[in-house]
């Protein structure tokens, strides 16, 4: 069996950033296994700008952002296998992948980084009632057809879900000459980043129907009509509130789900972000198996993915180089009041250089909040937040000195400001 120090599953933003960081820490025997024809993952189809402000202090498109990273990967001569799919991962870090040139290959790795990104939630997952003609398609797939194949999937479009992908596609489809009749969002608040709401909906006069969902789809071979209804606080449709739209396309932007099958097969616990439970360097409960990027938790910006994955790459290198004591004490990080999830979930203080970066999302939009960090019963930090919404991931850096012990519990909560 072939042996490699580090195998990275996925060559998108996360995989590339992790590879570069691990290499620069001295771990140079790396193999990236990528299912596509090129590096970059989903960035290749994100031709809109909005990337790179954090990483490169420039406004870049997705392909430009990914090129910056891909160039660094190539400079270091890091091995990549393209059009290769990982079939299996074992607890002992044997990665099995398949491609045309090599067939099925087993690789014994010292460390593995899962950087497999997400897939889009489908119509079936929420059981949209009605007929199942063509024309019901997820926003990301429509984006791939349009931006990589020059193919327009529809001319009269309605969008379900106010997540960023749907908003971006609302604008994109309008620019290509389609008519977008509206966006419906089941929550009473929108799910996308504020600047996307403005630049994609308001600027194009596309109406947003909050607290609405699609209650029926009509069409024998191609979609012809949809019906939306208002919902109550339990998300049940309210009779009498139906509105119909004659469309040929229903675009779904109803959520990204981490592609975590390989880790789930290993019986690894999964957090509320639907990603793995990880420590301060994004290592899972299995020593040497790491998870980073959208497969760990859905990020708002590829820039944040790159930053996180650099930490992960450094962590994987340190692990292989034996720099850590895995037995050193750790404390748990718990999402408290109003928090949906936190990353990481466990921290070995001894492994950190100077500070701990915690990322989290709140579970609903809140105003006048105090983010409260309570360590072993004592409040160690407070941050005042006038507004805080689920669709914007929060990132907080806590200096090591704030912690007076290595074990116990850090609880993060969002409290009403007194």
């Amino acid at each position: 069996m072939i042996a490699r120090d580090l195998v990275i599953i996925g060559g998108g933003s996360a995989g590339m950033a992790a590879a570069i960081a691990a290499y620069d820490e001295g771990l140079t025997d790396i193999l990236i296994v990528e299912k596509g024809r090129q590096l970059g993952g989903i960035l290749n189809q994100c031709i809109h700008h909005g990337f790179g402000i954090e990483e490169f202090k420039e406004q870049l498109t997705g392909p430009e952002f990914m090129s910056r990273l891909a160039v660094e990967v190539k400079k270091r001569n890091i091995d990549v296998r393209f059009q290769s799919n990982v079939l299996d991962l074992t607890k002992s870090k044997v990665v099995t992948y398949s491609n045309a040139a090599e067939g099925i290959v087993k690789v014994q790795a010292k460390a593995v980084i899962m950087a497999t990104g997400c897939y889009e939630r489908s119509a079936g997952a929420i059981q949209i009632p009605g007929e199942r003609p063509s024309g019901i398609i997820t926003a990301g797939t429509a984006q791939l057809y349009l931006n990589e194949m020059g193919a327009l999937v529809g001319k009269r479009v309605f969008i379900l879900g106010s997540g960023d992908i749907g908003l971006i596609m609302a604008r994109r489809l309008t620019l290509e000459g389609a008519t977008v009749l509206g966006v419906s969002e089941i929550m009473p608040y929108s799910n996308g980043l504020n600047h996307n709401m403005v630049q994609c909906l308001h600027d194009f006069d596309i109406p947003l129907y909050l607290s609405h969902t699609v209650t029926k789809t009509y069409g024998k071979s191609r979609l012809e009509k949809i019906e939306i209804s208002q919902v109550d606080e339990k998300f049940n449709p309210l009779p009498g509130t139906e509105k119909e739209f004659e469309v040929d396309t229903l675009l779904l932007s109803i959520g990204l789900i981490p592609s975590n099958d390989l880790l789930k097969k290993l019986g690894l616990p999964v957090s509320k972000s639907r990603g793995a439970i990880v420590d301060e360097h994004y290592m899972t409960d299995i020593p040497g198996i790491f998870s980073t990027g959208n497969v760990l938790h859905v990020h708002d910006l590829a820039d944040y993915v790159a930053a996180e994955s650099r930490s992960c790459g450094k962590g994987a290198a340190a692990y292989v180089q034996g720099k850590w004591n895995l037995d050193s004490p750790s404390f748990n990080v718990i999402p408290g009041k109003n928090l949906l999830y936190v990353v990481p979930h466990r921290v070995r203080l001894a492994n950190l250089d100077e500070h701990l970066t915690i990322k989290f999302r709140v579970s609903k939009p809140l105003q006048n909040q105090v983010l409260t960090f309570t360590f072993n019963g004592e409040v160690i930090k407070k941050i005042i937040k006038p507004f805080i919404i689920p669709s914007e991931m929060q990132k907080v850096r806590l200096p090591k000195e704030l912690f007076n012990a290595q074990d116990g519990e850090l609880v993060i909560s969002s409290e009403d400001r007194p």
Partner: protein
Amino acid sequence: MTAHAMENAVDNGVELHLNEAVTAIEENAADQTFIVTTSKNSYHCKVVINCAGVYADQMAAMVGQPDFSIRPRKGEYLILDHYTAELVNSTIFPLPSEKGKGVLVSPTTSGNYIIGPSSEFVDEKDDLATDKPTIDKVKKSALDLVPSIPFNETIRAFSGLRASSSRGDFIVEEMKGHEHFINVAGIDSPGLASSPAIAKYVVEELVAKHLPLNKNPNFNPRIKPYINLKALSFEEKNELIRENPRLGQIICNCEKISLGELDDLMSRSIPPRTIKAVKKRTRAGFGKCQGGFCQPAIVKYLADFYKVDLTDVLYDKGGSNIIRCSTKECKL
């Protein structure tokens, strides 16, 4: 199973004409032959076997006065993603009622769970819509059998129509007064399991009365075996891939279907022409992302194979084109 049977039939000389609806059937009283007119052609024949499912009564009515009617009975189903923890390890049935088998909870041969079906009569013969109250009832019935079901792992809800006859039973007989018109109607549950026996009876007892039947010495009962990569060992898989590298190139990441398996399907006597056909016969597009990642590649594959534009590739029936137009040519 159905596709394999048809492939075997076509391999042995049967002509399959798809996308061709029967519009009229005229019987010649003198010699009891028929002229069957379709949307594309007309055929002169001695025997007609009517297996038109929910439309069997309409087909029979083209010839005479059928003494039965077919009411479509809809069944809605849920499919759960591949299981990582075992929910049940065999098909769990409730006690049957007059409505049928009832809602089952069952593992599938593909490693998913299937839950359903419901059972309710509908008026339209093409009403395939799912609806929330029925899906909720299916979930509730399933929970009566298995107390905890991870419905958040659902990846698809779909429905089908059973052909229920007014007689409450299978109708496998010559039509009264039109003995060369054989009705095989109302074959609802347990129709699939009964179909080989029904076919044998129809041919040997009914068709044989009207046509001289001589066993075909060249009949080949086997289709070319389908490659089942998952059943092979690591070494066996690699040997096949060395001979055919496209077997190592995965096109559907959720279900791990290779290009080589799709090539093999296209090389047979009834290659799929639509996305839905590829989905049903390879499982590409049946996984958790429901074709989100692989559909564009399969659309391109079909366009290249049939030498048509991307815009011509259909999801299923005519008019179900996936792409409306290419961006450089849109006229709106």
